């Protein structure tokens, strides 16, 4: 199996891009990725592409990517794996190179959540993740989907809404210096706790915003990476995990087994342990989900996430900084782009050029969990030697 490296990365800002369509966002992210390649990129070098997108604004996803980025001569595969789409697109591209099929491939992710009327968004997106006869009519909105877990988690663990609020405060603060982030302002614990309730126990500031955006990664076989850069970021491990799709079938809702499975696969492939991770981008669509994920990813023991939060360990400057980009919570969450953009952030972190730099970061982890909390993808990256 050949080693695979990231040699270029770029993304659009995450925002409510009412004035930009998917056909605008894709070439924007692609061009920024191409520009980031230290020794330059000939588009003709790209041999294949994987495109992660949940919804399909303006139609056929693969064709739109081919058409808008001048990739009509290469195979393009559309990846849809709920909120794990981005990191699963990375995983598929890695297999394309690791197998020896290709030397240079493109990974892109994009979505436009704000393309439909906000009052219609719920039912449109719920159709992709719910059982039509049983769950769909109950009104299991996306926050409720996760809140069912977090309510039980708060019941069984010492964590409180205050700890969740501290996660929101942290991620908002991290986003302030990130020019690509959607919510670049500080908030306080009091603001989080006093915000309007969305779905108990989530107030407004416990929730990710709805976002549009696109992100791109250029992957190359390690043995050809030096054509593009002297400072590649190696992809050490990839993993994907699944779980039962209906909430009533999940035995222990204080954990996401999909994450545990994905992390086990990625760490196993990399030969690394959670203690090796220097910086992580973790799926914080809702604050409590970031806390449960600390435990599922092995950053702390079961029901001890609150200790990491209280100690500030997951803030930049702490022992295991999480979401230095602001995370989904403050950077934004266009689902298909989210995982790819996590890797864009970590590419910069591991090369020392991030806007909110974690000093000396060498091993990084990206994580998504989503859909009906039934799929997770984890990617492990290693920075270039100093």
């Amino acid at each position, binding site marked *: 199996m050949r080693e695979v490296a990231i040699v270029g990365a770029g993304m659009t800002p995450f925002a409510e891009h009412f004035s930009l369509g998917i056909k605008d966002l894709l070439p924007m992210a692609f061009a920024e990725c191409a520009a980031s390649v230290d020794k330059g990129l000939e588009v003709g070098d790209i041999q294949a592409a994987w495109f992660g997108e949940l919804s399909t604004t303006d139609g056929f996803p693969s064709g739109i990517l081919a058409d808008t980025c001048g990739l009509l001569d290469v195979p393009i595969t559309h990846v849809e794996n709920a909120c794990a789409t981005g990191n699963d697109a990375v995983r598929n591209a890695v297999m394309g190179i690791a197998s020896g099929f290709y030397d240079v491939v493109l990974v892109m992710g994009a979505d436009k959540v704000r393309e439909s009327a906000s009052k*219609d968004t719920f039912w449109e997106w719920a159709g992709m993740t719910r*059982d039509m006869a*049983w769950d769909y*009519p*109950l009104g299991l909105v996306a926050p*409720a989907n996760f809140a*069912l877990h977090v309510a039980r988690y708060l019941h069984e663990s010492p964590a409180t809404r205050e700890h969740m609020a501290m996660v929101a405060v942290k991620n908002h603060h991290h986003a302030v210096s990130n020019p690509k982030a959607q919510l670049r302002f500080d908030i306080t614990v009091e603001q989080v706790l006093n915000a309007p309730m969305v779905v108990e126990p989530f107030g407004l500031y416990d929730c990710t915003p709805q976002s549009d955006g696109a992100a791109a990664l250029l992957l190359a076989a390690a043995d050809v990476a030096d054509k593009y850069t002297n400072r590649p970021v190696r992809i050490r491990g990839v993993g994907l995990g699944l779980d039962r799709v*209906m909430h*009533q079938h999940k035995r222990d*809702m204080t954990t996401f087994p999909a994450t545990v499975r994905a992390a086990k696969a990625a760490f196993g492939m990399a030969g690394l342990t959670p203690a090796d991770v220097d910086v992580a981008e973790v799926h914080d669509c809702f604050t409590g989900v970031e806390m449960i994920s600390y435990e599922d990813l092995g950053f702390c023991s079961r029901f001890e996430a609150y200790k990491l939060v209280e100690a500030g360990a997951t803030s930049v400057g702490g022992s295991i900084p999480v979401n230095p980009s602001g995370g989904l919570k403050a950077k934004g969450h266009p689902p298909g782009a989210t995982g790819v953009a996590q890797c864009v952030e970590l590419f910069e972190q591991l090369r020392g050029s991030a806007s909110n730099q974690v000093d000396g970061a060498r091993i990084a982890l990206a994580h998504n969990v989503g859909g009906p909390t039934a799929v997770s993808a984890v990617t492990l990256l290693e920075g270039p030697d100093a």
Partner: protein
Amino acid sequence: MTHVSAIATYLPCWGSAGGRVAGGDEDAVTLAVEAGRAAIDASFGGVAGGGSAGGDDSADAGGGGGGGGVQRVVLVSRELPLLEGGNAAVLLAGLGLDPEIEVSERLGGAPAALDALSSARARTLVIAADVQPFAGAAAALVAGSGLTVTPVARLARSLPVRTRSAAGQVHDYGDPRLLRERGVLASVSALAAEGAEKPLALAGVDARQAAAVCAGQPAALPTTGASSALFALAALAESHSAGPLFAAEQATVSGVLVGDGVVVVRRAEPAARPLPASTFTPGKEIPVSLAAYDRAFSAKVRFEAGRQAGTGELDFPPRYRVGPDGALHTDYTLVPLPRTGTVYTGVTVRIPVPGLPTPYSLVIVELDGVDVRVLARVTGASPGTVSIGDRGRMVLRLVAVRSGVPDYGYAFCPQEAAA
């Protein structure tokens, strides 16, 4: 003459002393199911579908002796949810009765309910349900023995002070005095002239009018529609009062003579509480797949799990399985699930959700005695008041109206509310 072996009543917990209102998840069918199940249960000591999933009895819940041997169901209401598309299958499924049973849907008020009862053959379950202006339902089971009910008077007269067209458009002539004098009182007088005794109770009218017509002080009735006739019968049975019972709707009156006989009366009439404030946000119609509806119907509306042949494991919803050897297992039987359980986790949705009244609570309930959990909306309690560990029962409710299709399923009713 018919014999009534059991009478059961149901009132929604919402409203005030002045009258009950149906929750947003209740309609004439769900109200009828509440009363009808209680009547079957009262008469035969066990409603079909009462929790045999853990045992060996996997027979179709409604077949044979299930459902207490009910052979016909008559539903009387002026508020049948669907004029076309059918309420009968949902009604039978909710009652736990066999789908082969005959269902008559009768459009009518209190006289129609009384007529349905007095003309019914044995093994008929007569249910009357009202949604507006006051909500309630009552059911009577006609049997070979029990309280005797004999038709004694009937007069159909036309004084359409209030009209409602097939399209649901209501007109009110606006003369309650005319309605009283030339409607109910004139008809009762006409019957008296033919020798009818003064009634002990008059259903279908408000308490003042009833008191003006009746001998003695009639019991207060919670509705003025079809169900009021059966509520009145329940009150007479409880007070062991034999005598005439009249039921009126505008100028039409029916009368029966209530005699002697043993009858079980069961009331599910929780204390009234104000209906919680709720917001309805219009949006696109909620889509429905009728193929998915059809596949799910029996398990979803009868509350049945699939029990895998061989292992005996329960799947809710029922499904095919694939074994470790890759072999497909499609052999399962539908078995009724227990209807009581404990909240494992729960949340309350506060944001507006187009097409659904908000706020609402969602819970995952661990059912008693089986390894099955259910995701359900909470009913009969204010949103946000149910906690992990709370106990309650699963009841048939209207989950949503999806592109014109009422979508029924089970909701969790916490114990305090059910008491």
